[in-house]
């Protein structure tokens, strides 16, 4: 290969340029097990870079600011809009309060997230990877800091190659300190989702926060620093499972970052003023490779390492503008379009296709199930646990009694008095340990404190003797029914009443 040509593209003439080669190209010269080839992405400007900065700002802003949002829930309740109170066993999301029993809402959210990802991927390829994935966002932020301190691509390569001197030491030290500070801020913000943010913020700096808080801050500082500072594109290429099966969501009409081979080839150096006839538009300047955060050459075609960020599009467009050729040599395009162009036919892009429609249907289905569950959500739950030992007790008057542990989950923030009744036994008498003052009847009044579980030992007795219409069978299906004082907010629980064999 002729280094002279590659190093002196007309665009960048007059500037010292390090040789630009893709990681794949460099790897082919190495044995099977290779150490990481460091990627030095160059600064780039353009539409996709601006979108990427905007999304980065949005994501980081959301991440850092959301724990500080307040939401008044009245006295005794935390006023943080989004809070996962693990010791208190509650999840708060604005007006919604989740108990551990309702953790399926989080499962639903994860399913929505996954199917949403499939849906977007089917249309736009790996835009999640390129724009919104935390790995991408933080790596981008770390690269920005790196560029501020060590300079752009060529300066960084030069700095790495230079012998150890004080300037190198100061710059490297400054960079790593900055990274660790960002990492600490990341870890610090993470714990705010699990604790009261303003209080914990003060506690962290005054040394009064719990060991758990410090450990989590340390762990997230370490992972942020390692993943965004050192591992970077290796996380996407080796650790993340998503690139391995993302192709399964693609079809021929999915937009991906594409090099227009039929327009670009044959590539080669172009001297200003000479004819463009008989050659492709690609001037082989390697700008697309230099800006790539994963260090690939998009001209090799669609590949696993491509995170679909479109920075190579920006780089190529800049070059095309300079050499006076139309933009879009690298563009978000579909496989079907490419094939049509290669064969000279025209292709009408299909927006309505089976794959995204299936994803959309699943998405709507899961979302409506979750919404229904959320709207139908009762602020009271009833759990009944039947005594296993003894199965039943014969009382002195010969009646049979079963014991139950009844738990009333009062999710409201007020003390409520419930009415607990039994259905399924003819002459059931209900009594409660500690509530002996209440008349023995077929129902009983139970008090539940605000936002807590009230536990009661409840006895159900079925009288024996001549008055009974029919003897209780060995297994009787019964039902506990809970009503609040205003007779709404019902909860039911089915169980059995056991009697001896006759």
């Amino acid at each position: 290969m002729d280094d002279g040509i590659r190093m002196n593209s007309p665009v960048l003439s007059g500037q010292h340029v390090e040789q630009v080669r893709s990681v794949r190209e460099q790897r082919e010269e190495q044995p099977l097990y290779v150490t990481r080839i460091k990627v030095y992405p160059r600064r780039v400007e353009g539409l996709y870079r601006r979108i990427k900065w905007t999304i980065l700002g949005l994501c980081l802003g959301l991440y850092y600011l959301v724990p500080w949002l307040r939401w008044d829930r009245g006295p005794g309740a935390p006023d943080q809009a989004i809070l996962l109170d693990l010791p208190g066993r509650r999840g708060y999301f604005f007006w919604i309060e989740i108990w551990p029993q309702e953790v399926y809402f989080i499962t639903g959210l994860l399913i929505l997230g996954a199917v949403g990802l499939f849906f977007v991927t089917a249309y736009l390829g790996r835009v999640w990877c390129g724009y919104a994935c935390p790995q991408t966002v933080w790596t981008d932020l770390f690269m920005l800091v790196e560029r501020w301190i060590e300079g752009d691509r060529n300066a960084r390569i030069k700095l790495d190659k230079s012998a150890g001197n004080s300037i190198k030491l100061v710059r490297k030290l400054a960079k790593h300190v900055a990274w660790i500070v960002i990492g600490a801020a990341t870890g610090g913000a993470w714990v705010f989702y699990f604790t009261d943010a303003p209080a914990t913020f003060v506690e962290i700096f005054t040394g009064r926060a719990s060991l758990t808080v410090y450990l989590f801050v340390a762990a997230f500082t370490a992972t942020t620093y390692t993943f965004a500072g050192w591992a970077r594109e290796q996380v996407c290429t080796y650790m993340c499972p998503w690139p391995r099966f993302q192709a399964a969501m693609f079809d021929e009409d999915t937009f991906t970052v594409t090099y227009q081979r039929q327009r670009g080839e044959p590539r080669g150096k172009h001297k200003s003023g000479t004819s463009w006839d008989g050659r492709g538009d690609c001037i082989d300047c390697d700008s697309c490779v230099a800006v790539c955060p994963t260090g690939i050459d998009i001209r090799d075609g669609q590949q696993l390492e491509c995170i679909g960020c479109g920075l190579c599009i920006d780089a190529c467009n800049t070059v095309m503008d300079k050499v006076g050729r139309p933009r879009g040599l690298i563009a978000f395009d579909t496989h079907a379009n490419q094939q049509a162009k290669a064969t000279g036919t025209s292709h009408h892009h299909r927006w309505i296709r089976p794959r995204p429609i299936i994803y959309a249907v699943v998405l709507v289905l899961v979302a409506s199930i979750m919404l229904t569950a959320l709207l139908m959500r009762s602020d009271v739950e009833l759990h009944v646990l039947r005594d296993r030992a003894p199965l039943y007790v014969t009382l002195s008057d010969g009646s049979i009694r079963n014991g139950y542990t009844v738990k009333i989950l009062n999710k409201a923030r007020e003390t409520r008095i419930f009415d607990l009744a039994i259905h399924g036994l003819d002459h059931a008498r209900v009594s409660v340990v500690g509530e002996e003052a209440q008349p023995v009847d077929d129902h009983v009044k139970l008090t539940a404190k605000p936002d807590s579980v009230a536990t009661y030992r409840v006895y159900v007795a079925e009288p024996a003797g001549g008055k009974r219409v029919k003897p209780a069978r060995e297994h009787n299906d019964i039902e506990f029914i809970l009503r609040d004082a205003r007779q709404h907010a019902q909860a039911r629980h089915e169980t059995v009443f056991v009697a001896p064999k006759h």
Partner: protein
Amino acid sequence: MPTKIEKDDVTGRDTTGHVWDGIKELNTPLPNWWVITFWVTVVWAVGYLIVYPSLPGIGGLFGYSSRTDLVQSLNEQRGQRAAFVSKIEAASLADLRRNEDLLNFALAGGRQVFADNCVPCHGAGGAGARGYPSLADDDWLWGGTLDMIHQTIRYGVRNADDKSRISQMPRFGVDGVLKAPEISDVADYVLTMSGSAQSSAASARGEPLYKEHCVACHGEKGEGNMELGSPRLDDRIWLYGGDRASVIQSITNARAGAMPAWEGRLDAATIKMLVVYVHTLGGGK
């Protein structure tokens, strides 16, 4: 067998000289990370040997011992419980029953102590067994109030303790007080009191015998006497079986179930916890 050590052309490494089926084994050194890890573990092991008890008779620099660790954990736990335990010791049983926090602690503790000490006779959940009273029903031989249960647990029944609950039913048959046919008649009468059997000529013959020999303890109508621990005969609960043969056997040989005194075996607070737990089993009195 090693034959000839030579340089491999492809990798540029020496071979070990081992050849199997024409395949030469390369002398590939272990990766550095592996060797370093190995030596770190060796150094670690030496350090461990010095600071932790590894050799017989030598304690180790840290003075660590799993036994002292356990004692420490137990003491810690005792410390955590102390706040509750001292309150339980000071509180009366009635107050204990009323204080929600103390009650929850006592019920949890009582459940554990009951499982460790009482379940062998009284069964899980106080279900009882033949000869061993059920604690889950509404019938109490020696009284079902908190104080009565407290006394029964502390001093037990028919044992060597000075304050033990004592009573003894006469052995009507064995000691020749009643003859076999008379015992049979009394049994028939006793069964009518609980409604288990209809009145008959035999039960009519048994009635005066019951009035003469049994009323003092079991009462006019078989209502029993908790002062003496004599069971009710007018209910459906039979400690030793409610069929005719079992009742005859009870009258003939008498019954005398015993229970150990727990004072001295369990501390005062533990016994109190046990009392409130047992009290809730059947709903108490």
